[in-house]
């Protein structure tokens, strides 16, 4: 039996980055993080522009009103839900 060879497939990575499944996974994480942060926090997922890693979907959780801005400044709320965005 010959020695197995490994070959990268860059087009496959690009397809995964842009796949609806990847976006849905990110959306679920963003929703969980925003929900854990509180009522006045919201999340969004946008597909990056460009090729390569620039084209991956980007999830963000942010404050939606002054109440959340104040809450985050006082309690570091967004830092406390940071783990929910991880793998």
């Amino acid at each position, binding site marked *: 039996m010959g020695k197995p060879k490994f070959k990268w497939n860059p087009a496959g990575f690009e397809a995964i980055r842009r796949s609806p499944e990847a976006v849905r996974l990110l959306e679920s994480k963003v929703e969980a993080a925003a929900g854990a942060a509180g009522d006045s926090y919201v999340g969004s997922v946008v597909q990056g522009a460009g090729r390569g890693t620039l084209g991956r979907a980007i999830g963000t959780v942010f404050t939606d009103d002054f109440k959340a801005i*104040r809450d985050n*400044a*006082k309690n*570091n709320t967004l*830092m*406390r*839900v*940071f*783990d929910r965005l*991880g793998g």
Partner: protein
Amino acid sequence: MTEVLVTPDVEAAAVVFLRSSLGALASKVATAVPATMPDTMVRLSLTGGSRQDVASDSAQLTTEVWSVDSPTASHVARRAQAYMMSAAGSAPGVLWVRRSELVGGVQFFPDPDTNKPRYQFTVRWHVRPAAI
């Protein structure tokens, strides 16, 4: 039943470590701010963490620094960050820190409840959980 593993008290270890490292640079290093805030206050908070495997936990520590003016608060925060990052491979506060990771560097983060400037940063300490 699988082995019961407890994350060590990283907050307490970090307080002891930073208190000794910063010395006179900080009036107080603690996990809570007293009713009357001292001139230079350093607060450590455990803001998250996760278990990597049976031999490794990561603990996310946010450090806030208030002081009488911005340059002083920034100076103390940057020093504190340097010490927290230097903890890797040592045992600050009798806790072995395997690796230090910078999550968010020193930033100006105004505090709505005081008129003192506040700078903060966040690091992750990778530590070993203890079996009980």
